[in-house]
């Protein structure tokens, strides 16, 4: 944006105006609607936003007012944000799938006077809770479908508001510019409510500088330009979406496309073929699974070809991507593979043009991660949080390590507290939690260091590894750092391991309960010609035990390579006689292990693990689908895993 270096591009309305001047004819927003990708250029978007802003003003929107935004990803909803900001207001995007009550909390807490809703469905939710929202005065809806009989005076059609706005704009020339000029970088930009997994949602207040600088740093670091394309399909209330689809889009001027509907995302992805793509791990997982399933149905020779080239890619793909030296022959083969398999595959998945792919939210399985990278797709993980305006650390090009979340993002400082918790400091550090100073004080130190609540460490060459939630991290009696979740993930990344629960806090060594993956191990057993009656039987087999032991040993191997974790290698483990089950309350409905439940229900097993006995009888009650319960008895062998001598003393890192 060299041309505008002079102007202060420190707020979104200003960026918008600048883009409209600089790249006015380049596409800014797309939406699949009426069968084609309706497209708005930057200058069109500018006019739309301006009209809406003036319209809001005409409806009495004042500086400092909060504007709730409720709906799926739609250009018109995105435009409402700069529109509000232009008037010195603050957009408050709300999770569109949240039920009326959750919505009520946010709107009440943020004291929104205005709301923009996508359609009848969202409007109905608002009307349901309106009387409990004294602050809420005006509701603007985008889609007129089904709204003919809503005659409440405070309901306005988006298009009408813009109409009013144009009139108002014509009547008060310079009004818009004036309003825009009143705002500056440090001002409040947006309030994002962290989805309330624990307790009440907190309203994170972010300034223009927070968002814009973070976005700009990352964008420049990754070399994003106005020619990039991105598909916005994740909730608008999520900080990531805000900083990609608003922050980076406005900073670099790239085009953001909105899918036709949540059902058609994959199809739309395929049509748009974004160059810049974000998805949480589960989406990559789904893609990979569907690929594998579909290829299973292909003709024999095709399958053979596919797997041959996949093995090749697995061997050399990543090195080629990272620009390492690869034999000419392999390169030739890989090129052939690109023509026959990788290219078509990427095409079918809609990733042909992908230059940069992000993955974050939780740890992604190495095999999945590697699969995409070996296809030549530059998929990277980053680590971030709402309080940081997203980016804290990003995997640098050419130096990807599947078990780390990369190096500190530009402008970010990271330090690890003695407790093992990761702290950061960056231009993106949030202002405060809205109306919740205690929380703010807890999270943000006086000198602007922010507690992430995650435990991790920086390895020798400055790569950040996140190992667990800080509160779950414990220590062995010898003081070694222990991150159960990290170990469990390591184990779960093996296809044969379904669940794993690791113990060791205030004990002498680490031990684990393991669930085998009935399907994976079942297949393996069939290939081995091993007959079995069911889970319990299979889990009891010595062959299976050996199989699992391999996994554990491998896991230990990895751990050993890391001085900080080498101490927490698994010493003893046993394979559970039943699958951990949500119906038995051992897992949450989202299949997360309920540690306390497990440790009290299997107390005697755990005791056995920490005794010198090599087996242990159990009887447990299982609940079947039909609700019948039954008790099963089993004698579980306890296995010793092989531990590897660590290269350096355990406490090296601290």
């Amino acid at each position, binding site marked *: 944006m060299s041309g505008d270096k002079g102007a202060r591009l420190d707020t979104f309305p200003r960026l918008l105006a600048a883009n409209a001047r600089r790249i006015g004819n380049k596409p800014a927003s797309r939406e699949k*609607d*009426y*069968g084609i990708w309706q497209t708005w250029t930057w200058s069109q978007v500018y006019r739309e936003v301006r009209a809406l802003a003036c319209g809001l003003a005409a409806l009495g929107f004042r500086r400092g007012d909060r504007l709730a935004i409720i709906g799926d990803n739609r250009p018109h909803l995105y435009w409402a944000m700069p529109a509000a900001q232009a008037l010195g207001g603050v957009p408050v995007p709300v999770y569109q799938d949240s039920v009326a009550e959750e919505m009520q909390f946010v709107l009440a807490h943020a004291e929104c006077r205005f709301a923009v809703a996508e359609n009848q469905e969202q409007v109905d939710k608002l009307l349901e809770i309106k009387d409990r929202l004294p602050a809420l005065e005006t509701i603007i809806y985008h*889609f*007129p*479908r*089904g709204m*003919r*009989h809503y005659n409440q005076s405070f309901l306005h059609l988006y*298009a009408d508001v813009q109409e009013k706005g144009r009139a108002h704009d014509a009547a008060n020339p310079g009004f818009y510019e004036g309003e825009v000029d009143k705002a500056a970088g440090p001002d409040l930009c947006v309030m994002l409510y962290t989805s309330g997994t624990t307790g009440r949602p907190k309203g994170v207040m972010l300034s223009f500088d927070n968002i814009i600088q973070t976005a700009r740093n990352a964008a420049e670091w990754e070399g994003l330009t106005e020619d990039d394309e991105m598909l916005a399909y994740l909730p608008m209330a999520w900080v990531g979406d805000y900083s990609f689809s608003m922050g980076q889009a406005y900073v670099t001027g790239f085009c953001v496309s909105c899918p*036709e*509907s949540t*059902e*058609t995302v994959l199809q739309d992805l395929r049509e748009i073929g974004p160059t810049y793509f974000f998805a949480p791990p589960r989406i990559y997982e789904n893609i990979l699974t569907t690929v594998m399933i579909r290829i299973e149905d292909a003709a024999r020779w095709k399958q053979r070809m596919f797997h041959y080239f996949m093995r090749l890619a697995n061997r050399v793909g990543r090195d080629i991507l990272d620009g390492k030296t690869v034999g000419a022959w392999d390169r030739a083969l890989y090129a052939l593979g690109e023509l026959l398999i990788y290219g078509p595959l990427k095409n079918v998945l809609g990733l042909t043009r992908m230059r940069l792919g992000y993955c974050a939210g939780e740890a992604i399985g190495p095999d999945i991660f590697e699969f995409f990278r070996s296809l030549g797709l530059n998929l990277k993980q980053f680590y971030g949080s709402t309080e940081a305006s997203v980016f804290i650390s990003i995997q640098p090009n050419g130096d990807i390590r599947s078990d780390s979340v990369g190096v500190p993002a530009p402008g970010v400082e990271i330090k690890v507290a003695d407790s093992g918790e990761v702290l950061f400091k960056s231009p993106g550090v949030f202002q405060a939690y809205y109306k919740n100073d205690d929380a703010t004080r807890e999270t943000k130190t006086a000198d602007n260091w922010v507690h992430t609540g995650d435990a991790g460490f920086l390895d020798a060459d400055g790569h950040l590894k996140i190992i667990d939630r800080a509160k779950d991290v414990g220590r062995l009696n010898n003081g070694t750092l222990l991150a159960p979740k990290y170990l469990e993930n390591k184990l779960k990344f093996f296809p044969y391991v379904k669940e794993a629960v690791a113990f060791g806090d205030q004990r002498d060594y680490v031990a684990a309960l393991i669930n085998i993956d009935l399907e994976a191990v079942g297949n393996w057993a069939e290939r081995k010609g091993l007959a079995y009656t069911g889970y319990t039987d299979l889990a009891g087999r010595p062959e299976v035990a050996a199989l699992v032991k391999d996994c554990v040993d491998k896991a230990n191997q990895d751990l050993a390579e890391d001085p900080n974790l080498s101490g927490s290698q698994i010493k003893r483990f046993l394979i559970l006689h039943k699958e951990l089950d949500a119906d038995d309350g051992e897992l949450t409905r989202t299949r997360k292990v309920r540690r306390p439940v497990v440790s009290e229900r299997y107390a005697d097993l755990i005791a056995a693990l920490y005794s010198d006995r090599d087996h242990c009888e159990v009887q447990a009650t299982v609940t079947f689908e039909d609700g019948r319960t039954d008790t099963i008895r089993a004698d579980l062998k306890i296995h010793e895993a092989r531990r590897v001598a660590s290269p350096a003393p355990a406490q090296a890192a601290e």
Partner: protein
Amino acid sequence: MSGVATERATQMPEGATQSQTGRKIGDVIMKVDGVSLSFGGVRALDNVSFDVREHEILAIIGPNGAGKSSMLNCINGFYHPQEGSIYYKGKRRDTAKTYEAAEEGIARTFQNIALFKGMSTLDNIMTGRSLKMKKNFLWQALYFGPALKEELEHRAKAEAVIDFLEIEAIRKTPVGRLPYGLQKRVELGRALAAEPDVLLLDEPMAGMNHEEKEDMVRYILDVNDEFGTTIVLIEHDMSVVMDISDRVVVLDYGKKLAEGTPDEVKRNQAVIDAYLGVSHE
């Protein structure tokens, strides 16, 4: 946004009563007067008379073979009644040619789906707009200039219909491959594409499962509501008829048995008798 909606939503004449969808019911738009029709010896319709009022939903019910479909066929000029007359917008139409019905704003769907199997959903709906497209074949051969402009304008309208009926996903699928329920919806779309004033629906819900029926009912009501389209429908499912129709005409063996609001008809003795024997789907 949706072109059709904005275009027609405003036409709402003053009238007395309110329809099911809260829409004002206008004055008589069609007058069926003593219509009789027979094939060879069979008397399909015997001196049937009733009115259709603007913006209303009128249901024609009756046992199988009561002459319901024949009635619709007379209205849109596919059959020509031997006796009686049908006036539409003050103009006599029972003698008119079949294709003129469409030109006069009468569209319909069929009892057993009559889609153009070889064409995609989109093309079927576009075909519904043929009437409104005028450019000659020379322009069309060039697919350029006026012809192209026209084609694109109408594509936009067709898309509005597709959006209205929520059939985006099957836009380009050949209708032959669609499940029954969807085909019915596409057929409705084809009829809507003509932006009709009167919509004749011949058993729009026949052979549908419960939720398909619910959807269809919703669409029918929406059509009547959003576009003010007058709707004459034949339906077997009594609960549906009673729910959505403003007035009901009962036929039996080609004769009109009763006419009135759902409740009146429900209480009518003749109707009850006629229906006792008959089994319903």
